């Protein structure tokens, strides 16, 4: 061994004049930023409430009587009032979180997997495959997302599953684009060349070299995308393309309460606020994750 152990303790960070650190060098920061803690806590509550709805919600999702309709916020027994059919809004909010969150999170997860695979394959393949994949995705991408979601959901018919499928299809293209861009950025870097020189197959390189680098970026992006998907899901269900009534969903609740806007305007704000706050929470969480994972986009010296 030609190196002598130097007893000075921890290693000095990379040296050699101005040490240029490749774009995307990540390290987890010591302290978790507030932008992760606060939305994280909030979303945890919402998700847990949705999962344990039977235990948490004061009433069933469809229980109610006309005699108790449109009671105001803060009425005894009904913290957030009742809707046009006398059903407790708070309970419906909790029960309605299930389909809404499902329609927000699941499409992103599924599209995330499909989109990443497509983006990575496109970026690492030859020109023909790349063009085929990316231009096909461009067709999808060229439609305004909301319209595409509505069109697909309408074509497939109402229902949670169809809404999820529609949103998944809509989200594949943007995710694939992000993945493709990230991979393109690192494609010509030295460690990729070294990986090629080692004789590894492309699938292996994709799995073991590329993925660890793009995963954090995609995680951040997809987290924010959930925020968007929740709004879309709300929109779809507002139009009646989500779960069938009388089952609650935030978007359809908005629709129902909207009809009584002149009687009890405040009530309609509640599901709207819920959609809004939940969406923002996911967005902020995305930002927070970016900070937490310390993702740089420039070369740092």
């Amino acid at each position, binding site marked *: 061994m*030609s*190196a*002598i152990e*130097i*007893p*000075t303790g921890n290693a*000095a*960070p990379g*040296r*050699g*004049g101005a040490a240029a650190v490749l774009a995307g060098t990540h390290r987890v920061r010591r302290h978790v930023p507030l932008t992760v803690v606060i939305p994280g806590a909030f979303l945890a509550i919402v998700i847990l409430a949705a999962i344990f709805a039977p235990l948490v919600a004061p009433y069933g999702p469809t229980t109610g009587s006309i005699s108790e309709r449109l009671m105001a916020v803060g009425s005894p027994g009904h913290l957030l009032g009742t809707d046009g059919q006398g059903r407790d809004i708070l309970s419906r909010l909790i029960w309605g979180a299930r389909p809404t969150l499902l329609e927000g999170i699941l499409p992103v997860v599924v599209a995330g997997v499909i989109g990443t695979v497509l983006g990575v394959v496109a970026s690492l393949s030859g020109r023909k495959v790349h063009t085929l994949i990316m231009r096909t995705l461009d067709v999808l991408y060229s439609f305004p997302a909301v319209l595409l979601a509505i069109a697909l959901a309408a074509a497939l018919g109402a229902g949670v599953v169809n809404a999820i499928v529609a949103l998944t299809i809509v989200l594949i293209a943007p995710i694939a684009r992000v993945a493709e861009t990230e991979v393109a950025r690192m494609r010509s870097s030295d460690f990729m060349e070294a990986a090629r020189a080692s004789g590894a197959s492309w699938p292996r390189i994709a799995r073991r070299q590329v993925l660890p680098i793009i995963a954090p970026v995609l995680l951040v992006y997809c987290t924010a995308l959930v925020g968007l998907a929740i709004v879309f899901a709300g929109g779809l269900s507002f139009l009646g393309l989500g779960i069938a009534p009388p089952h609650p969903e935030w978007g359809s609740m908005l629709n129902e309460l909207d009809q009584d806007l002149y009687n009890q305007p405040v009530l309609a704000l509640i599901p709207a606020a819920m959609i809004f706050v939940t969406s923002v929470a996911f967005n902020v969480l995305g930002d927070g994750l970016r900070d937490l994972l310390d993702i740089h986009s420039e070369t740092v010296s």
Partner: protein
Amino acid sequence: MSIATRIHTPPDISDARLETPRPSRHRGSRPAPAPTEGTLKVEDLAVTFRSKRKAVEAVRGISFTVEAGKTLVLLGESGSGKSVSARAVMRLYSDAVTITGRATLGGVDLFDLDERAMQSLRGRDIALVPQDASGSLDPLRRVGSQIAEVLRRHEVEHGRKAARQRAADLLAQVGIPDPARAVRSYPHELSGGMRQRALIAIAIACEPKVLVADEPTTALDVTIQAQVLELFAQLQQDLGMGLLLVTHDVGVGRQMADRVAVMYAGRLVEEGPGATVLGESAHPYTAGLLRAVPTPETPRGQLQAIPGQPPAAGEAVDTGCSFAPRCVFAVDACRTERPDLVPVGTSHWAACPVVHGRVPVEVGSPPTKAEAS
């Protein structure tokens, strides 16, 4: 500082991160006191970079002198603080950087001047040749125009035409072929070596008393490097300038230095005449450095490497000698008492009490082909 403002400062400021405070728009209305002669004397220079989290002591108290017409080579590896020292002397750092000590040029204390006064001195009496030509030349302006600007700013030339003519003369002086064409060229139209020469032309435009060259040849191919070093020597002779040459290359030091100051971890470890320091070193680090550079004579596998790695800027051990962790001669006292520079020969100092002024193994340069034949 807006881009527009930055372009109006002399193009010797290259580090965008540590910009100088907003420059004044007055052009020489209140010139700095002119240095009487060309000796640059630096005493107890210390430079600390402050960021939100910590303070980095890049230079920890060094002193050196660049005599008129002579070359002092500031030699060191990365993290040694050599570039920082040179730039600090020229006050190229912003207020986020704490600089203490004294730097006098021909009687004028550079650290005592206000920014306006320093600006008129910079480029006129002391000039910088930076390392990276591509970062230092404005890509949107013709080369001649950039030289002419320096001339007019320091009122060496007044008319546009006169300034442009002088720019062409300067380009010729630095050995650029077809100077008339080069004057009209943009930086990207010139090769790397030519750009470096253009930078040198800008630096010598006002015939400064001291030229500070910060790794001027590191990015160049070796045959171009030889040309540029020869140019430096020639210009020094013609203009009688002092030259402060910052480098990590021992060979460059041997070739160019009248005197050498070796830096390690922000401090000077050895200082003396070039041939002596880089031939019969009195400090284990210098000696180690010389033995670590391979020559065709060195038997293979027997390069005497210095174990470990040089500390990053500001990260050296503070108690005892910074080099002790890597030093084969270190004794216990080395880790507790910081050694001062002590005289070890005629105007030759070294900061190593252990070696008593002489490192046992003599390090000579291999016979050159010319010497051998």
